[in-house]
């Protein structure tokens, strides 16, 4: 299988990765993952540039497998002596692992990657003055958005252009590149002695994709609609999740469906293949070959082609995600789902989750809710979600829904259920799929019968 890196810089990185992989001796496998990226971040505050950061960073992660034992080392530089040290360290680390027959690098599987290249050189070549102007413009738009806006904690412009390559002594060779830019603002609104914050953001593969007005409007609306919010009494509620919130639930589910978690007995859905784990309305795929996703890619972290993986179809669990080692252990092929950075070994993970569209708009789904809560923010996801037991409990801010309409604001309350129950309690999925900055595509979702903890 022949593969042409998209440009000279990618080709140079691939050549470097291959030169490291070629140092494997007869009794070992070697993999090198190399990355180089340049980025800038402009932060605006009070009509001034608060900070302007620009940098290039690069790094390499090296895996050595011998006798079914894996060692790893990384360095955040591509200087020759550091690479030699990392290879020596990875080799030195390997014998301390205990052998596992499934451990080993990926092998070419004959599946050709779906061509994809959203790299736009104009991201990297954009003049600094233009980035500064955009950040200042966004801050001003937020300030002008409502008389109660008293400031913007920060308005940022960020861009990143990166290239990566992965090569192994087993014949894997992959390289790719990506570029994106994004902007975000966190608005502060004051009325009397109350202060609220609201965030808005926009992301694109090209600078012209950025929609400043949408980001500013979102930040202003969210900061100004919570005045007078207070706890409501504890009760059972239906919640309506706009796409960005629903994507959080989809991501939690996706995290439980990795072969790694299943094989190690840490997934609440590990023995449920072929069973209905969710409402028949839910269909969930992980598909980095869908080019609408901001996480679309040709290769996974082990250099295998990305592919479309069905996880849940009409509520029925179809399968799990695997990298090459967990796949071997499960007796299945890799699903091209290895995710990684320079400083970690590949792990199984979701790349571009997408919930299939249902029917109806946000407004029409809202109109069907008698009493419920519209969630604007969720806090404490890291402390209130246990993906082994499935327990979920988060703090929220939002608006009550009464008779199909958004009503009074609410804060300092929690909502709780379990992931297992929430999936079965999905009562509506909208048609309004939104592609979010993290790469997930998701429509509005309505979930019934959660516990609200309040006054």
């Amino acid at each position: 299988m022949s593969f042409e890196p998209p440009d000279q810089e990618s080709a140079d990185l691939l050549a470097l990765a291959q030169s490291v992989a070629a140092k494997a001796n007869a009794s070992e496998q070697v993999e090198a993952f190399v990355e180089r990226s340049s980025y800038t971040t402009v932060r605006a505050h009070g009509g001034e540039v608060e900070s302007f950061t620009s940098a290039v960073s690069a790094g390499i992660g090296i895996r050595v497998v011998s006798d079914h034992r894996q060692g790893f080392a990384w360095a955040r530089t591509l200087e020759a002596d550091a690479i030699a040290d990392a290879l020596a360290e990875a080799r030195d680390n390997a014998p301390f692992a205990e052998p596992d027959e499934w451990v080993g690098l990926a092998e070419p599987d004959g599946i050709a990657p779906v061509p994809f290249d959203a790299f736009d050189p104009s991201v990297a070549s954009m003049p600094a003055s233009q980035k500064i102007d955009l950040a200042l413009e966004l801050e001003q738009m937020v300030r002008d958005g409502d008389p109660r806006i008293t400031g913007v904690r920060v308005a940022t412009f960020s861009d990143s252009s990166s290239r990566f390559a992965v090569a192994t002594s087993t014949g894997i060779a992959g390289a790719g590149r990506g570029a994106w830019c994004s902007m975000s603002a966190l608005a502060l609104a004051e009325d009397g002695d109350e202060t609220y914050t609201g965030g808005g953001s926009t992301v694109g593969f090209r600078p012209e994709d950025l929609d400043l007005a949408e980001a500013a409007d979102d930040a202003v609306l969210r900061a100004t609609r919570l005045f007078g919010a207070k706890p409501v009494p504890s009760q059972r509620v239906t919640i309506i999740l706009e796409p960005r919130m629903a994507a959080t639930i989809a991501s939690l589910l996706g995290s439980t469906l990795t072969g790694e978690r299943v094989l190690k007995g840490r997934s609440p859905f590990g023995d449920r293949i072929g069973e209905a784990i969710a409402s028949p309305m839910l269909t969930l795929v992980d598909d980095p070959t869908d080019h609408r996703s901001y996480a679309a890619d040709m290769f996974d972290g082990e250099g295998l082609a990305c592919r479309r993986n069905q996880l849940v179809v009409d509520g029925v669990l179809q399968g799990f995600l695997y990298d090459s080692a967990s796949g071997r252990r499960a007796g299945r092929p890799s699903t091209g789902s290895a995710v990684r950075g320079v400083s970690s070994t590949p792990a199984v993970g979701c790349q571009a989750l997408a919930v299939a569209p249902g029917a109806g708009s946000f407004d029409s789904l809202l109109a069907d809710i008698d009493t419920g809560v519209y969630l604007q923010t969720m806090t404490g996801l890291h402390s209130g979600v246990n993906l082994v037991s499935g327990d979920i409990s988060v703090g929220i801010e939002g608006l009550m829904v009464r008779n199909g309409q958004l009503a009074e604001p609410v804060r300092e309350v929690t909502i709780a259920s379990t992931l297992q129950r929430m999936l079965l309690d999905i009562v509506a999925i909208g048609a309004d799929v939104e592609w979010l900055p993290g790469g997930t595509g998701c429509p509005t979702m309505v979930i019934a019968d959660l516990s609200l903890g309040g006054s």
Partner: protein
Amino acid sequence: MIEQSVLEEVLGVAMRTGGEFAEVFAEDRRNASAVLDDGRVEELTSGRDRGAGIRVVVGDTTGFAHTADLTEAGLIAAAEAAAAAARGGGGGTNVVALDRRSASRGYDIETYPGNVPKARKVELLGRANDAARAVGGAISQVSVSYGDNRRHILVANSDGLFVEDDTVRTFFAVSCVATGDAGMQTGRESVGHTIGFEMFDMYDVDQLARNAADRALTKLAARPAPSGQMPVVIGSGGGGVLFHEACGHGLEADLVAKGASVFRGRVGQQVASKGVTVVDDGTMEREWGNIAVDDEGNPAQRNVLIEDGVLTDYMWDHLRARKEGRRSSGNGRRQSYQNLPMVRMTNTYLLAGEEDPESIIASTPKGVYVKHLGGGQVNTATGDFVFGMTEAYLIEDGKITEPLREGNLIGNGPEVLQRIDALGNDFAMGPPGTCGKDGQGVPVGDGVPTLRVSSLTIGGTAA
């Protein structure tokens, strides 16, 4: 790491376009970690991160650039990039003369982990795995992780400050899954200190593993936590994350200055119950948040934030302090040379009171006892914060009774501080934490005595 003459040259270049302040922060960090999971030592990892971040300040603007190239040419290129991003009206050459100071943390590292054979680190993993599995058949999965790092930093700035420091941290954690009729539950135990391999003289690895296993087993019988408001007793050392979230972040001067803190303008006011004294203390020896100097070269301090319920001061970094014409409180920290510093906590804790912890529970007719807290999160503008309970029990008739499933608690910082109505005499530090702010994580410690909050909202599923 870098010659003094080179630093002076680089700072001169950074100031040449009219900078008012320039700084070189260089870092050389080595990480080692080892993981056992599913009954097998999976891998050892070694990492190396070395580079420098250079910032130039003009007015309210900071230009920042970082590089992995520590040669004179590499540093000058970064200095020029940072200076170009923050161009002043002035110009001309600035001569910087550095005055080298020493950093001291009052104790020595006994055993550098880098000198400990890898086999000894791996042996700890196996011991913990065996001890956790020996607790009982319901323990269905165990993972154990070991980590150490050595971080050498250098800070030199245009005020003439020049200081270097060497910090060693060691970490160990055990996580267990227990499987029962009603599904799976988890239990965790972690320890971390700003010391070397001598940490394992302080702890019995087998006992740490048994603690994690016991927590998972206990929760197999747990019932859903209540939903709604009730009194909450926090256990000694269970986690000062309550104070980290309820007031710590809101007392960071950068958030205060931007109007994003509910504690803005409240210095000198009674913000907490009498008897409540909250301290942030980077000098606390051997603790996870210990620093000799912060990442701007200022010595760590013990800063009293709230004294007997009265707000005494915020926490400060160099830039925010400079603007107010005062000294930094030694709270300028950053994740790595690739990040700008900002105001961060170190070890944040609540001083002990005088009550007997047993009597605090006995005088609570109905409530929740949280023995171990998880992480938390706060919206500093509203003061609303959440924190997780990883090990909690019902209190009924003044007695600790049934275990509860996990969940978050929610409260409002200024209200909760006023609702502290009992403080125990049994202060202890909690497990090591990582505090995240604007995408940067730094190691922090926390501690509390047994204490009671008269009312907090518990985010369970039971009526």
